[in-house]
């Protein structure tokens, strides 16, 4: 029995298309793994299989040795697996603070309280302040999400997921839509994450990947093509041809 998230022999297909083919992955506490691969390789599908949005055709998923396949989406979050969405999914009519507050109250299991005001937990409010500050969103806290630019929403997306204090964090293209000038906010946030947190990053921005990942998995057509340390991957001919392209030949 091992700590962290373990995936064994994961299999998934849509109709005829196989999008996950015998995938084995280990995410130990403290892991910083990047999942890269061509478009449509099955990266998002993989994350959905882990979060429970999709059900695998075969294979095992365990968290700290416990089989999590019977758990629904919400229960897996409770168990400590959280993700950000590739395409921003926020509570658009609520304020940024309310978005974060919602995450916190679910995390603390007091979402069914109905008598005290939602903003009357001082500790949580401080936490929200800190989180907003980390993403330089202080000024936007009381704005409705729908009034933010897309890039700002991406930051809220990330901040909200971090409020859940997960043990396994899946980031699906966290920097997409964030300008290069601000992408350090994302990388900083990732670097500041607690040491015992396991992180899986799905990203096409190689700068970000090479900066934060300690290990990289390359997925092609639903199969793991190779995996290894960043420098090994960058040097791999097949990865260059299929994915990285000429720009990274240096």
């Amino acid at each position, binding site marked *: 029995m091992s700590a962290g998230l373990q995936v064994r022999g994961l299999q998934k297909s849509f109709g005829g298309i196989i999008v996950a083919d015998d995938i084995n992955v280990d995410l130990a506490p403290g892991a910083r793994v990047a999942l890269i691969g061509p478009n*449509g390789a099955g990266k998002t599908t993989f994350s959905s299989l882990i979060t429970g949005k999709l059900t695998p055709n075969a294979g095992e998923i365990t968290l700290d040795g416990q089989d999590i396949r019977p758990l629904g989406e919400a229960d897996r979050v409770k168990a400590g697996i959280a993700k950000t969405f590739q395409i921003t999914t926020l509570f658009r009519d609520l304020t940024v603070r309310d978005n974060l507050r919602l995450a916190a109250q679910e995390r603390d299991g007091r979402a069914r309280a109905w008598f005290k005001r939602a903003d009357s937990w001082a500790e949580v409010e401080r936490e929200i302040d800190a989180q907003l500050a980390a993403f330089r969103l202080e000024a936007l806290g009381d704005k409705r999400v729908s009034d933010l*630019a897309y*890039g700002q929403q991406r930051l809220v997306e990330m901040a909200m997921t971090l409020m859940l204090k997960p043990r396994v964090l899946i980031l699906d293209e966290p920097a997409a839509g964030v300008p290069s*000038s601000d*992408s350090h906010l994302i990388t900083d946030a990732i670097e500041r994450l607690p040491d015992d947190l396991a992180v899986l990053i799905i990203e096409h921005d190689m700068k970000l990947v090479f900066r934060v990942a300690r290990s990289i998995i390359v997925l092609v057509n639903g199969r793991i093509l190779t995996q290894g340390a960043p420098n090994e991957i960058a040097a791999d001919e097949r990865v260059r041809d299929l994915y990285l392209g000429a*720009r990274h030949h240096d």
Partner: protein
Amino acid sequence: MTEPVLNLKGVVAGYGDTTVLHGLDLTVAQGERLAIIGRNGVGKTTLLATVMGLTRLHSGTICTNGQDVSGLAAHRRVSAGLGLVPQTRDIFPSLSVEENLIAGLREDARLEEAYELFPRLADRRTNGGGQLSGGEQQMLAIARTLLGRPSLLMLDEPLEGLAPVICDMLMETFERIAADGKHTVLLVEQHTELALEFAERVVILDAGEIVEDANTEELRRDPTRIERHVGVGMGAT
């Protein structure tokens, strides 16, 4: 002499009560490769949407190839030669890939062009648009707009979510499109590096106003002009 493909005069636009663009003037000549850069939320998307007629123009005029399109509906602007790949992709989820392409197909364009450009889409021909992966949706959005044969192709962060190989291939494609001198490409890009590499002219937007409008070469010589408005982190590979 040729009319500028796009000519903005005093464009003021926004959402509801809020104004995002505060009086922009911009002229884009035919065959130009122009990049617009700027921080998050400065109004880049809003600018493109306003040109396309998707956001309400409060005041000012927009001309394409000499034609005033300020009051026209979006589809009329397409006839006038404008084309936009939106930042949020906006695939039609319940149409198949092929139907997505047909929806914007001009008589003189062929479906096959899209499949040649993105073989991945050919494999997914009959899939529902809503079932595509993020990157596949991006490809579809680009292909769909190209099939509309725009004389001004506006791209709102088109490389987002695409694999590096595809990005390279696309940049080449955009360059090729612009190369014939009849097509103009207007690129909004977060990655300053990429933008500078592609464009011959760069416009920097800040808080809804144009704060720089210069040759790429000029800007390369004086990077502080960019850093002042776009922030640090540029060029740090």
